[in-house]
C-alpha cells in the first residue's frame, strides 16, 4: 500500500495495530525534524542521532497516548526535545563538543564559501574570524536563549512548534530569539567587532 497520500494520523493508527512499515514511514517523514531538534540541543551529530533514535523508540511505545490534539509532528518533537534535554543533562559537556571534527570540516567548507565572496584575502580572513567569534558567542548563550535561537533558525519548525517544545508562549520564544541576537551582538562588540565591514 502506498503511503504517499496517507496522513500521519492514519499511519499512527496503522502503527498502533502493529504495522512496522507505517511507523517506518513516520520515521522517514520526521527524522530530519527530530534529528535537528536533537542537534540544536546537543550540538553533536553522534549524540543527536542517538537522542533521535531514542525519541522514535519512546514515541513508538507511547503511540497509544497520542490523541491527535496537536499534530503528530508536534507531539513527536515534544518527545524528541525531552529526550535531547535528558541527554544534555547526562552529558554535561555538550557545548565543548559543539563542533566535532567532522562538524568542523563542514563548517570550514561553509566558511570558505562565504569567504569566497570577500574582495580581498584580508577581508576573507576577517570574515572567517568573525564567524568563529559568532559561533563562540552563540555557544556561550544561556540555554534558554540558545535553544530558541537555534530552533528558530534551523528552518524546520514554526514558532508554534518551538513554543510547544520549549513549553513557552510564542511571544516568549520570539523575545528569546531577539534577546539572543542582542546578546551575541553585544558580545561581538565587546570583542572589538563593531567596525568590521
Amino acid at each position, binding site marked *: 500500500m502506498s503511503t504517499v497520500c496517507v496522513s500521519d494520523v492514519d499511519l499512527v493508527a496503522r502503527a498502533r495495530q502493529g504495522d512496522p512499515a507505517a511507523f517506518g514511514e513516520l520515521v522517514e517523514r520526521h527524522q530530519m525534524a527530530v534529528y535537528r531538534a536533537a542537534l540544536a540541543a546537543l550540538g553533536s551529530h553522534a549524540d543527536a542521532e542517538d537522542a533521535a533514535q531514542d525519541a522514535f523508540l519512546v514515541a513508538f511505545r507511547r503511540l497509544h497516548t497520542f490523541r491527535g490534539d496537536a499534530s503528530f509532528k508536534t507531539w513527536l518533537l515534544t518527545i524528541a526535545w525531552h529526550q535531547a534535554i535528558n541527554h544534555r543533562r547526562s552529558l554535561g559537556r555538550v557545548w565543548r563538543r559543539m563542533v566535532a571534527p567532522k562538524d568542523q570540516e563542514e563548517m570550514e567548507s561553509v566558511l570558505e564559501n*562565504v569567504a569566497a565572496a570577500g574582495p580581498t584575502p584580508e577581508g576573507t580572513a576577517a570574515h572567517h574570524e568573525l564567524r568563529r567569534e559568532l559561533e563562540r558567542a552563540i555557544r556561550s548563550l544561556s540555554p534558554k536563549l540558545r535553544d530558541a535561537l537555534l530552533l528558530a533558525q534551523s528552518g524546520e519548525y514554526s514558532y508554534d512548534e518551538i513554543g510547544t517544545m520549549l513549553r513557552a508562549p510564542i511571544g516568549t520564544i520570539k523575545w528569546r530569539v531577539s534577546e539572543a541576537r542582542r546578546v551575541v551582538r553585544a558580545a561581538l562588540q565587546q570583542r572589538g567587532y563593531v567596525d568590521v565591514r
Partner: protein
Amino acid sequence: MSDERLDRLIDEVAKQLTAGQPSSDFRARVIASLDRHPRRAWWTSWIAVPLGAMAVTMIALAVARPFMGRDRGAESPALGPSRQAVKSETAPAAPTPDTTTVGLPPSPGGFGETGKPNTTHVGSQQGTGVAAAGRRQDPSQSAAAEVAALAPPPLEVPPLGVEAIGVAALPTDSIAVTQLDAIAPIGIAPLAADDARPSGGANEGTIDDD
C-alpha cells in the same frame, strides 16, 4: 557593521550549527531497535503492577509467618488459655520446670511454652495430636521438623517425686499473742540551770578544740 547585517550573520551561523541530517541507515536502525524492544501493550502495566504487589505481599507474609507464630505463642495472652485448656485435657499435671531451662522438650504440663524456637519446634514434634492439630503447618515449620528429626533423642528426666504438702497438714490454729506487762513510767528529773554541760563520755554534739 550594521545590526541588520550582523543579525543576518548570526542567523546564518545559527542555521549552520543545526544543519545536518541523520545517517542514511537511520530509519533501518530505528526499526531494528523497535524489534529489539517490542512495544508493550498499555494494559500490561495494569496487570503487572497488581501481580507484583501480590507477589511482594505473599513473600512478606511467608517470611513473617514464623515470627508471627512465635510472637503469638510468647506474647498473646488471648491464645494462652485455649492452648492450656487443650493440653490440660491430654496431659497429667506433673510440673517439671527444669526441662525448659535446659532446652529439653516441653513437658506436657504446659511449662514448656516459653517462646524459645527450639522448645517450640520440639514440642510441635513430640506433642500430642491435639496440640499439633491446633497449629498451622507451614514451610518453616516443616523445615524445623526436619532439623528436629536430626536432633538427639530427648533426655528423659524422671519426675522429682516431691510429695505435695497438704493444706490440712499445716497448723491452722490461731497464733496466740500473750499480753506483755505494762511498762512502768520513767521519771525524769529536770537538770539544774548551772549544770547544762554533760559530764562523762556522753559528749555528742560537742567539738573538741585540741
